[in-house]
Each structure stands twice: as structure tokens, then as C-alpha cells.
């Protein structure tokens, strides 16, 4: 993917790097950032929704709306790190299917709730390890490997389940997807907030996070400066697998059933969420704050569409357009306003 961008760059006459007369103040930089723009969009969507439907501003309805994004956002946090490091994982939705199938099998064998959660997380971790081993161990491109594991993992679910479904999860298991910690704050929402903080610290305040940026900007330079590139990439695939396993626990618990088609197409929404959050699809830049706001925006838009009775497939058109538009618009802007891009 990087090579494509370079090709296009070489179309243009190379310009000397422009050095601005003075740097922007931190305040100006904060105001001009992608995250601020997203916050404005969020506020707009919120206002439009509250005018469009009288049911929108009810705390319980808003709490229900959070289920639209919490599971996807869990994966999106890990995916953001992965994309910043220059890789991608398209198999996340299939990992959910496989983890959910594994939990369903465990239920048939009489596993209790803690065992189910453990099996879900472990399956996710294992899938992440398969991706990571193939990509970092054999040096294969992550796009093809995860396209392959995308059909392999879901394919295994189809082999196990065929056209049947697993149900009969224990009552205590339903708490993860349907339970509330306090008042309108569901377990998933609280988990989302905790993970947002944890991933924010991991990416922005640890040596590990620094290395992730370094790898995404130039993995050869990162290797030469002593960063264990393969090990960190492997870790990121493990993390993405683990988060997919966690999302599988929540989703299965919320739906109370497993079908092999569970969460199909979710990889698109997760990648869209990450890109909408301002993470550069070519790697090297992005922030967790952006992903958090992007998750909220997508959740609200989906909820708003739901209140207006828009069918799911129309929403998926919207998400597809959104994915292309958020990458295309800054590039179009750069073409028409070249001065701004220099800063």
C-alpha cells in the first residue's frame, strides 16, 4: 500500500519542504485537529437526533444506543494500534464467529460462566497468534493472511454449526451483554470506558506505544534503532485477537445464541471506525481519543437511522461511503488548498 502512495507522489514536482514563519500555539493546534472536527460532528448529530425524534433524549434509550458501538469499539482500539503500526487485520469478525462457536460447544459440554468467558478469550488469543505467527514469522503480507484466516475461522464455524445454532447459554452468562453496573451504565459501556483509558495510556504514555508509531512511520529505521519490530507486531495481533474474543463474549451474551454468520461484515465497521477516528490508513499516526469519538459518532448515527426505521443494509451503504469519504476528503482538500497541507 505504501508503494502506491509513493507512485502517486512522484507524479508531482518535488517541492522543497516549507518551514512556517512561526509555529502554531498548542491552542490553535488543538482547535484545528481532526478530533475537534469529530467532536463538532458529534455535537451536531446529537442535536439533529434530539430534534428528529422525541425518544432520543431518554437516558435508557441513549444507554441502549451504546450497544451499537461498544463491541466494535473494543476491537477498534486494538485495530487502531495495528493500523498505526502499518498492518491490518480483516479477520476480526471471523474471530468473533469462531470464539462464539467455541463457547457454544463448551456450553453443550456443560461449561459454567467463568469457563465460557475463558474459552472465548482464549480462542480469540489463539486466532490472533495464528495471524501474528503467519505475518511476523513467515513475513507474509497482513492483508492476504487475514483475508485467508477470515474465511478459515468462519469456515470452521460453518463446519461445526452448519445451518444450526447454539443456544442455551446459562443465565449468569447473559450479564456481560445485558447487565448493568449502575443505573443506566451497562457492563459493556463501563468496559468500553475502561478500555479507552487503558489503550490511551498504552499508546500515548508507554514505550510500547512509542514503538508502535515508530514502526508505522518506518519499520526499517525502527529495527535499526533497536525496536523488536516482529515481536511488537506479534503482540499487536495477539491483542487484536484478544479484543475480538472479548467482543465475542459480549456479543454472544447479548444475543444469547451463536450462528456461523454472527458479526458478518463487522470488520468493515471496525476499520471504518478507526479511519474515521483520524488514524492514517498507511500507518504512523492517529490517537485513541479520535477512535473514541468516532465510535460515539457512528453509534449515534446508527441509532438515529434506527429510530427513523432505515434498514440495516442502507446503513451499510452509508458506512461504506463514510469509509471512502473520510480518506478522500482530506486528500481532495489538499489538492485544492495546497497551502494548508504544508502546515
Amino acid at each position, binding site marked *: 500500500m505504501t508503494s502506491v502512495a509513493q*507512485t502517486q507522489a512522484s507524479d508531482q514536482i518535488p517541492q522543497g519542504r516549507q518551514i512556517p514563519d512561526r509555529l502554531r500555539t498548542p491552542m490553535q493546534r488543538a482547535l484545528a485537529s481532526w478530533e475537534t472536527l469529530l467532536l463538532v460532528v458529534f455535537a451536531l448529530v446529537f442535536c439533529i437526533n434530539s430534534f428528529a425524534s422525541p425518544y432520543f433524549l431518554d437516558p435508557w434509550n441513549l444507554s441502549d444506543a451504546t450497544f451499537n458501538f461498544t463491541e466494535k469499539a473494543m476491537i477498534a482500539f486494538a485495530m487502531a494500534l495495528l493500523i498505526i503500526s502499518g498492518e491490518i487485520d480483516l479477520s476480526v469478525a471471523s474471530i468473533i464467529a469462531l470464539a462464539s462457536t467455541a463457547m457454544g460447544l463448551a456450553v453443550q459440554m456443560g461449561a459454567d460462566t467463568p469457563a465460557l468467558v475463558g474459552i472465548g478469550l482464549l480462542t480469540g488469543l489463539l486466532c490472533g497468534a495464528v495471524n501474528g505467527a503467519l505475518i511476523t514469522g513467515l513475513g507474509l503480507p497482513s492483508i492476504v493472511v487475514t483475508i485467508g484466516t477470515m*474465511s478459515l475461522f468462519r469456515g470452521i464455524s*460453518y463446519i461445526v454449526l452448519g445451518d444450526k445454532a447454539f443456544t442455551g447459554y446459562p443465565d449468569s452468562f447473559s450479564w456481560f451483554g445485558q447487565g448493568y453496573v449502575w443505573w443506566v451504565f451497562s457492563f459493556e459501556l463501563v468496559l468500553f470506558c475502561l478500555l479507552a483509558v487503558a489503550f490511551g495510556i498504552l499508546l500515548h504514555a508507554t514505550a510500547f506505544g512509542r514503538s508502535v508509531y515508530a514502526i508505522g512511520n518506518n*519499520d526499517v529505521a525502527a529495527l535499526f534503532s533497536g525496536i523488536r519490530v516482529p515481536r511488537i507486531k506479534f503482540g499487536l495481533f495477539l491483542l487484536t485477537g484478544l479484543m475480538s474474543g472479548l467482543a465475542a463474549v459480549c456479543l454472544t451474551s447479548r444475543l444469547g445464541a451463536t450462528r456461523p454468520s454472527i458479526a458478518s461484515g463487522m470488520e468493515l465497521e471496525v476499520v471504518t471506525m478507526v479511519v474515521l477516528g483520524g488514524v492514517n490508513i498507511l500507518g504512523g499516526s492517529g490517537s485513541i481519543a479520535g477512535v473514541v469519538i468516532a465510535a460515539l459518532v457512528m453509534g449515534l448515527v446508527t441509532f438515529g437511522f434506527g429510530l427513523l426505521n432505515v434498514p440495516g443494509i442502507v446503513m451499510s451503504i452509508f458506512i461504506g461511503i463514510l*469509509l*471512502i469519504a473520510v480518506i478522500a476528503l482530506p*486528500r481532495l482538500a489538499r489538492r485544492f488548498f495546497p497551502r494548508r497541507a504544508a502546515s
Partner: protein
Amino acid sequence: MSGRIHISREVVLGGAMLVLLGLIATRFPAFVEPGNLANVFNDTAPLIILALGQMAVILTRCIDLSVAANLALTGMVAAMINTAMPDLPIPLILLVAVSLGVAMGLVNGLLVWRLSIPPIVVTLGTMTIYRGIIFLISDGRWINAHQMSDSFKAFPRQVLLGLPVLSWIGILAVIAIFILITRTPLGRAFYAVGGNPNAAQYAGINSGFTQCAAFVLSGALAGLTGYLWVARYAVAYVDIAGGFELDVVAACVIGGISIAGGAGSVAGAVLGALFLGIIKNALPVINISPFWQLAISGSAILIAVAVNVTQNRPKGRVILKKAEHAV
């Protein structure tokens, strides 16, 4: 490669296919009878046609995940046109289908060329957009056999010189793409851009345009297959050929087309598609549930891509190899 006998990918794959057929023949001799093999080929023809387009795209270091959605949308439009105007001659429907496919390929291509958006993102997005449009234009309804005219349904099944038209179109597509890839400047450009985009640019090849052309070719073939698919199965709905893009990519990867671009052959793509086609047709014969197919395609992609990389790995110091990869 000095000191080692170089066996081409196509020969290995052809050998593997013969072994596979031999194994099936020991238990089920009827499978390898010419009549049945012709059926298998006819059944695989859509996959072959799509794999040829995908091959051109992959040669230029891109990937087209929207082929199946393109196929489904053109198929639906062809079926709707036929329902509205049953007397419209088939060549005109073919023309509409191919043009529509070209238009969708052009959207992908222009986004990749003019806006430099990574192909994986573009086609992941257009894949859902095209599928969604089918729902919008059809309202989620099916178009069934009785709504289509007889000539519309009969075209791909008509037998000419012992083979159905669908097979002949597959064979023609293989010949046409073979000539395009090996005998024209555009075909050379596909390899040049995939091999080294910067060098291609300096050699006077417009890399972006070449990539866009590959997407248009892939779109055109997907459009063509869209009509053939709907006419052959005599039904059109939102989810036809769902997930078929994975089979198409799998066929290319199995056929030895390097996902890093610049390496691969028409024979490889055709053999890759036939390999998958034989497996798909053999599963019910050897009594394995069709639910296995997705996992088999997935494993085939993984094994093929792993073999490709380990075979083509250049010898040299690890650090230098890394640096070369990053360029």
C-alpha cells in the same frame, strides 16, 4: 536460482491437480469421465473469468474485493431490464452488463488513481456500497425464473460444438486476456507497475492509469459474469455470489500470482481457479458437507501464499532484504 532445477509454478499446480483427480478417480471413476469434467469446467467458468480480471489487478499491486458485489449488482440490473423489456436482444443485455461493470470498475480505479486511496479500503467500501444498491433498486425482492424470458435464461446454456456458451465465453476470455497480458503494451505495463512503480514511472508508464485500467478490466469481466451468473442460475437477489470475492482472490494466490505485484501468469490464474473448482465439485461426490468449502478456500489461500513467499525469498543478508522490502 543457480544449481537448482527450476520447476515452474504452473507445472507443480498442474501436477497437483492430476494427483487430486487421480485420487478421486480411485474411489469415484465417474468423476473423471470427459462429460463430467466438461461440467466441472463449465461450473468453474465464472471463477476463471473473474480470476483473470483479479489477476490484472493484483499484478499492479492492488486488490479488488468488490468483484462479487459488482457481479451481483450487474446481474440484478440485467434481470430487471429483462423483466421490464423481455424482447430486448441478448447482445444488448451483454453490452449493458459489461458497461455497468466497467463503470463500477472505473469508480474503484479512479479512487485509487486520482485520490491515492489504498485499494483495499476503496474496494472494501465499494463492496458494501454496490451490495447496498442492489437492495435499494430491488427493494430486497427476488427475481425468479418465471419472471425472466426464455432466451435470457437459455443463452449461457446453449450448446455449441459440444460445450455450453458459458464455457466458450470462459475460453474466449482466457485467450483474450492472454493476448492482452503477453502481447500488448498495457499487459507489459501491468507487470512493470507491479514490479517497481517508481521505475515504471521513469520509463514513461503512468502507474495510476495502469492500475485504473486493471480495475476497469476486472469490473468489465465481473459485469459480464453478472449476467451469465443470473441467467444460468435463473434467480437474482441481494446476496448472490456472497463471499465469492474470496474464492477469486484464492484462485489467484493459488495460481502463484504474487500479492506483492509484478509476478504471475494467465495459466496460473486459470489453473488456480480450476483447482478450486475441482475441489468444490468433488466435495459432494466424496460426501463432505458443502459447509467445508469456506474453510478449504481459506486454508488454500494461506498455504499458497506461504509457499509463494518461501519459494521467492531472495537469498542475502536479512537486514538488506528487509530494507529492500520497505522500499
